[in-house]
């Protein structure tokens, strides 16, 4: 009999009972006696000098307890840290610029939303009323919001001494692109814009802090993906000792990367609670979230692909202007560089690659990881350029991909750029997707539809991603300011029930279920006898958190290690009880026994009790049954797959709809298929949102024009079709679970598939590229312009004919 009874099963979630009955506990649901409420005064200017801040009217307003400016808190608050400093070897020998980031701006504001003062009052309403009474004398300065323009001569200087507003010029290369291009039959160039997005977790951020002056213990509840890193960075920025800070991530209403940093508000709320010796809460409004929480993407890429006229790609060259916003967010430098440049090889054989990235400050909200984080931008460039190239040489996009795929491999494949993919079968995923899709039938349907004036198109994305963040030594060598391993504790109680503590910090991913499934299966005990604890620095030792599709691939493996240790010790106890050698003991389905001696059987619960009762333990064995593990992987994991999108474009209005979506993902082994499918669905919708309708737009002077949910088009149920999902399974060799990570596949794959589909729909009109989002107006203009150009070509040809 196997003990893997729940592995791979669609178990409904442990988390759901509380969440469907209104018993979730998000930060705003928490209450403390005497709670004060904090609201922030934020810059209405993109770029301005602060001449003076007069808080007197606000301080005297009803209900106001205190008002703080940056100067008031300067002694307690250092700069927010740059958590990833790129190494000079990759930035042309120049250290990257890491200008100070004061939590409350003191001399200058650098984006609309930059906080300048904090008001604390007895109610949220009193605090926000008083915000309007803080009189800030701003002297507006010229602003710049476009990353390319910010590097040009004469652009406003955002940080003193940062020339051309560039934090860095980052470079990686493999082979010799220029030589490859010189020899190539075909070179195709395209400017590819990956527009700025607003992450939009449904719960905006929220923070509550409470200080006990007697014990000097500061407790911070925050809607975060990384409670332990928040504690560490909070201690570094404020000087408050780390062991006297407890950070709790209660229920967190989505993150998608934007809750993955130390934010100014966390140190502001924490330090003010300490100063006032009163609990203080700040809840971000959605409108505030749009300017104060990090954005994603915002790349201008100039891409070049080269190859033979019969379909062999020989090289790719990309230069990117990556918009960093007004300051460096915690992990910002890694996103457009490490997680972008190292992914540009895709799942293809070409050996010549050149990538340069200018990281640029602008007068906009800081940009950092947003679901996929660098990998969607890379995949968009690679998959868009593959189809652009196939169209250029007049070959089918599937055949060209197949011709360039790396052959299937199970135990590592070295890429020219210096990374090693773990395992892959790109043909397999493409084949499975085509089986589900029926490509030939679609092409017939497309021709028929066109005769009826309906524009259909199909697009592909044979993506690969870098997940399972991360081997700490590799990340550290590339500039990471923290280790990226994960930890677990398995605590067996005397009755045999188990508490699992994990350093991952879920916010919708269902870890309480998935990790309980693993524990239940390994120990042969019912799932209800397992509790998974996360998100509290006082209950669990240091952990890294949830991002980069790492929680199962790294955190799950840390759990496996602790389970193994607990089982080994339990076997020793059982062996002693049975009077045999521990090597003879088999543990299966919650029972310890010795082969061929069936009457000697000890159930799990008896061993657990024995470990604590300790009346019959082997000599020298400590009582208790608990294990702690830290897992640091040797490599990243590299999920992949094929996504196929079908769009329909209304020729009269330009309206573009996603009508069919097929996704084959290979995330290695799967613990809970229901949960994996759910994450794939959500990821696809976010990628589709980017392709079709989402864009954060700034005016030239730095106003966010899409500053609310009325202006920024988060997809609704009506905008999305149902999705057709499936999987191939190529386990990773990086961890014993064989799991690669599944949180970001959809977002990474979807946007190129959908844009490729729209280009395919308009190919007969001569359209070769479209920039996202594919709004009706843009599509209508594209169609009109293409038809006009076609008319002009035809009449020119007719004239030549005459």
């Amino acid at each position: 009999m196997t003990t893997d009874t729940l592995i791979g099963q669609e178990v409904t979630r442990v988390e759901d009972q509380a969440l469907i009955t209104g018993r979730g506990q998000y930060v705003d649901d928490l209450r403390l006696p005497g709670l004060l409420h904090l609201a922030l005064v934020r810059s209405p200017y993109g770029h301005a000098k602060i001449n003076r801040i007069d808080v007197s009217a606000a301080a005297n307003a009803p209900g106001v307890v205190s008002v703080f400016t940056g100067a008031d808190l300067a002694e307690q608050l250092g700069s927010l840290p740059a958590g990833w400093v790129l190494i000079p070897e990759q930035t042309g020998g120049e250290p990257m610029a890491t200008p100070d980031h004061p939590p409350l701006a003191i001399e200058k504001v650098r984006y609309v939303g930059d906080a300048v003062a904090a008001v604390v009052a007895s109610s949220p309403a009193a605090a926000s009323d008083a915000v309007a009474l803080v009189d800030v004398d701003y002297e507006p300065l010229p602003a710049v919001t476009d990353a390319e323009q910010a590097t040009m001569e004469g652009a406003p200087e955002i940080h003193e001494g940062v020339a051309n507003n560039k934090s860095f010029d980052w470079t990686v290369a493999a082979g010799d692109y220029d030589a490859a291009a010189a020899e190539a039959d075909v070179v195709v160039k395209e400017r590819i814009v990956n527009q700025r997005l607003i992450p939009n977790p449904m719960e905006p951020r929220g923070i509550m802090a409470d200080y006990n002056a007697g014990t000097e213990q500061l407790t911070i509840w925050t809607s975060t993906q990384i409670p332990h890193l928040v504690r560490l960075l909070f201690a570094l920025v404020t000087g408050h000792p780390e062991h006297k800070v407890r950070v709790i991530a209660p229920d967190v209403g989505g993150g998608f990367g934007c809750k993955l940093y130390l934010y100014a508000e966390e140190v502001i709320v924490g330090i003010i609670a300490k100063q006032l010796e009163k609990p203080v809460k700040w809840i971000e409004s959605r409108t505030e979230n749009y300017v104060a929480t990090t954005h994603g993407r915002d790349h201008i890429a100039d891409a070049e692909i080269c190859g033979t006229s019969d379909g062999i790609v020989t090289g790719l060259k990309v230069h990117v202007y990556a918009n960093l916003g007004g300051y460096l967010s915690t992990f910002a430098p890694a996103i457009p560089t490490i997680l972008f440049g190292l992914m540009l090889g895709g799942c293809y054989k070409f050996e010549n690659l050149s990538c340069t990235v200018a990281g640029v400050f602008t007068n906009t909200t800081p940009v950092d990881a947003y679901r996929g984080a660098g990998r969607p931008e890379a995949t968009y460039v690679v998959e868009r350029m593959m189809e652009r190239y196939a169209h250029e040489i007049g070959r089918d996009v599937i055949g060209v991909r197949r011709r360039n795929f790396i052959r299937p491999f199970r135990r590592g494949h070295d890429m020219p750029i210096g990374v090693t993919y773990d395992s892959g079968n790109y043909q397999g995923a493409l084949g499975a997707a085509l089986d589900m899709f029926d490509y030939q039938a679609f092409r017939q349907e497309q021709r028929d539809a066109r005769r009826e004036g309906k524009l259909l198109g199909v697009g592909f994305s044979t993506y690969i991603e870098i997940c399972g963040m991360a081997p700490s030594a590799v990340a550290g060598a590339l500039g990471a300011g923290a280790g990226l391993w994960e930890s677990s504790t398995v605590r067996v109680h005397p009755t045999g029930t188990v508490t699992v503590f994990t350093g991952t910090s879920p916010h919708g991913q269902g870890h309480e279920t998935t990790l309980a499934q693993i524990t239940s299966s390994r120990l042969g005990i019912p799932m209800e006898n397992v509790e998974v604890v996360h998100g509290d620095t006082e209950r669990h030792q240091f952990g890294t958190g949830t991002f980069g599709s790492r929680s199962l691939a790294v955190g799950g493996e840390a759990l496996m290690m602790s389970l193994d240790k607990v089982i080994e010790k339990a076997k020793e106890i059982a062996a002693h009880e049975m009077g045999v050698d521990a090597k003879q003991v088999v543990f299966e389905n919650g029972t310890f026994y010795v082969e061929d001696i069936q009457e000697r059987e000890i159930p799990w619960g008896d061993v657990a009790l024995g470990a604590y009762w300790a009346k019959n333990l082997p000599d020298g064995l400590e009582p208790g049954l608990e294990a702690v593990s830290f897992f640091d992987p040797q490599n990243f994991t590299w999920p992949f797959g094929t996504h196929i999108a079908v769009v329909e474009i209304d020729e009269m209005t330009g309206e573009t709809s996603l009508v069919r979506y097929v996704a084959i993902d290979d995330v290695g082994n799967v613990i809970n298929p229901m949960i994996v499918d759910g994450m794939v669905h959500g990821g696809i919708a976010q990628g589709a949102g980017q392709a079709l309708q989402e864009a954060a737009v700034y005016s030239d002077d730095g106003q966010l024009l899409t500053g609310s949910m009325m202006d920024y088009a988060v997809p609704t149920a009506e905008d999305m079709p149902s999705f057709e999902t499936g999987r191939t399974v190529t386990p990773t060799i990086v961890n014993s679970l064989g799991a690669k990570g599944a949180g970001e596949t959809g977002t990474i794959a979807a946007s190129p598939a959908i844009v490729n589909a729209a280009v395919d729909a308009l190919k007969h009109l001569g359209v070769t590229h479209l920039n996202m989002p594919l709004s009706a107006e843009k599509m209508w203009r594209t169609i009109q312009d293409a038809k006009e150009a076609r008319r002009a070509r035809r009449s020119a040809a007719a004239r030549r004919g005459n």
Partner: protein
Amino acid sequence: MNVEVTITVNGTAHRLSVPPRTLLSTLLRDELDLTGTHVGCDTSSCGACTVLVDGDATKSCTMFAAQADGSSVTTVEGLASNGELHPIQEAFREKHGLQCGFCTPGMMITAVQILERNPSPSEAEIRSGLRGNLCRCTGYHNIVAAVQHAAANSGGD
């Protein structure tokens, strides 16, 4: 000067005195401690705060508490009865219609109304009915499946 509000919430009558600008969502959350009703935006866009007001799905952040005077309100805390989950709650769990759970209370309340008005909705009708409620986790796929599941379990097609 406060206003008096008489309101029945999940079957219990309350008489409260609140500032005139108090929103219904604020009254539910801060006066009655019913924090299952979430506030996810400030433009009536996201629908996380949706409750039933006299049977109509209503964004409680868009209504003053005073406007709900005399009303009967059902929140997510009132969906289950006698320890039994409402069919829509069962369906959301069964079909994995939630991930982070923040939009879920409003989403389920809207779904209840969709099914009350049309026990056998088509997929397009469900999607249309849910368009005032945003979810960023599920891509709506399993929310739609949950509504279909609840419809089937309640005798609809």
